[in-house]
């Protein structure tokens, strides 16, 4: 298991330069072989992947079909309320068993030959198993218990459902995997019962890791997204910081609204031609804070496939679903709190204008990651150059650094067992 991943990749001298700054070879965004290896070493490796909010399957027999990496999976509650997850592929001839995105059922029957399963994924029925009039049928040795839907390990934290392909001995307990700072932020956001507001689905024609970088990137915030600056609202000098877990794979970006403005640092970039316009309807941003800590922005990226955000009053989980080396789907699931008053609910719904694929703050992200994918079609040996805030992926008390991106790549390289040219 400790062999370098792919000899034809690893023997390339230039593959992953060991340099003072982080330089990511563009090949990791374009090579289908690397995408395949990621499915094994990351999505089916010793990691916990997000599958659902418990609020999406609130009652016994509820289910949701989704993806873990590029594998179709179903997360269910059995009749006792126990959460289960299994690969959505019939044990007989490989057909997709569950063909609804969500619903309520305690039996799942493959339409092809009507093999049926319970909510835990156990095989419960095989038509004509004994044949007809002594003819046909399965061999007498056929053992129903040996043919079930492949199960996933499931764990929950604060109403978030995670799953893993890894054996129990190979993956840390979920809380350890998340780490104390991630858990503390989930405690903060999911400390009250939530209520679903709905989903948005965004297709990005880009490798999933470009979005992982984007959500760990505090540097781009005030440069690419100009909504706040254009309307004379707070932005770049808000205080903020970046935190990573011990392994460096998760990232927590936070910003606290500050009243001071410091234009000297920005040298007259277009970002800071502030106050040219003002909102005709400021109710868009008028929501009352949900938290007393002053944090107005939280972008929590949990490796490998989840982002949790709080942007003013907007709350959502974003589920990253890699589809191929150059395409991913991002499912945004918005929520509020079950005890929201009508005013709070109204603020959350209005602020949907700010976030998501059509969000006035965030719409540029889908395009930014595609701009990279389009430009790196060739020259897999060429690399990015990531060094803002220094080489080391250490916690930062500012938002002009790339530390979480650096630490993401350090972890990724370890998880993928990529050799570096200097080692």
């Amino acid at each position, binding site marked *: 298991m400790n062999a370098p991943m792919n000899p034809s990749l690893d023997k390339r001298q230039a593959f992953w330069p060991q340099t003072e700054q982080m330089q990511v070879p563009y090949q990791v965004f374009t090579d289908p072989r690397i995408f395949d290896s990621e499915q094994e070493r990351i999505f089916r490796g010793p990691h916990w992947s997000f599958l659902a909010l418990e609020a999406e399957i609130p009652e016994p027999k509820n289910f949701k079909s989704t993806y873990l990496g590029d594998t179709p999976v179903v997360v269910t509650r059995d009749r006792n309320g126990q959460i289960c997850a299994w690969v959505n592929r019939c044990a007989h001839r490989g057909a997709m068993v569950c063909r609804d995105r969500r619903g309520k059922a305690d039996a799942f029957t493959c339409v092809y030959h009507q093999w049926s399963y319970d909510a835990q994924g156990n095989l419960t029925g095989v038509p004509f198993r004994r044949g007809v009039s002594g003819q046909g049928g399965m061999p007498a040795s056929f053992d129903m218990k040996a043919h079930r839907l492949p199960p996933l390990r499931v764990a929950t934290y604060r109403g978030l459902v995670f799953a893993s392909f890894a054996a129990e001995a190979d993956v840390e307990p979920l809380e350890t995997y998340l780490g104390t700072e991630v858990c503390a932020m989930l405690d903060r956001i999911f400390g009250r019962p939530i209520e679903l507001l*709905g*989903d*948005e689905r*965004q*297709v990005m*024609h880009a490798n999933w890791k470009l979005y992982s970088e984007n959500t760990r990137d505090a540097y781009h915030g005030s440069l*690419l997204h100009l909504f706040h600056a*254009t*309307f004379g609202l707070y932005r770049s000098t808000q205080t903020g910081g970046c935190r990573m877990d011990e392994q460096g794979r998760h990232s927590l970006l936070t910003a606290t609204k500050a009243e001071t403005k410091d234009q000297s640092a920005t040298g007259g970039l277009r970002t800071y031609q502030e106050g040219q316009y003002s909102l005709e309807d400021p109710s868009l941003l008028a929501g009352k804070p949900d938290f007393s800590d002053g944090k107005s922005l939280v972008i929590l990226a949990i490796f490998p496939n989840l982002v949790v955000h709080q942007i003013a009053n907007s709350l959502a989980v974003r589920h990253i679903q890699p589809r191929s080396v150059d395409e991913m789907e991002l499912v945004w699931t918005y929520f509020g709190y079950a005890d929201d008053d009508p005013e709070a609910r109204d603020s959350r719904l209005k602020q949907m*204008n700010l976030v998501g694929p059509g969000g006035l703050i965030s719409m540029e992200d889908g395009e930014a990651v595609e701009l990279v994918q389009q430009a790196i079609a060739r020259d897999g040996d060429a690399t990015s150059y990531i060094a803002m805030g220094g080489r080391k992926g250490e916690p930062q008390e500012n938002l002009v650094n790339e530390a979480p991106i650096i630490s993401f790549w350090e972890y990724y390289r370890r998880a993928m067992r990529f050799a570096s040219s200097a080692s």
Partner: protein
Amino acid sequence: MIAPTQPLFTANARAWNYAGDLSTVSLPELFFEATQLMLAYCACIDDDRLEDWPGFFSPDGQYELITRENAERKLPATAMRCEGTAMMRDRVVSLRHANVYAKQYYRHIVTDVLIGDRSQTSVSVSSNYLVTRTLAMEGDPIVFSVGRATDTLVLTDQGLRFRSRRVIADNDRIHTLLVLPI
């Protein structure tokens, strides 16, 4: 080219201005006027005259773009939501001056216009739409959105306007980003 700052329906403006009672308008005439409003609205967006877009609504007009997935679950999350024309104008200012996106064109195809319930002051109209999006740099259109709009039109002194427009998209996946209204 029809600009909504002028009366939309010059031929009938006088009759529409003075009749004041939609329940007495003949169905063919109402169908014609409602269809004209829809087509002028779509042309405004397709021609990149976004500044004119809010003018198709009454001042308290509501605009909502929601996926069929959320609508059928009776969940309120929208891809775009404007409550009143001020929010619409804010979105246009943001698109023109703050947001960064590739130059792109929509082409609306509107069909199956169906006149529904009406009162003296308002009429429900539904229609199917298909919108292609062409990125100027790439050149190929994609089917960007397809679905049904359910609208409530009211009579103003400038003719029919949207009091509410709820666009329900069959496609629940948005490719790359959503810039323009539908």
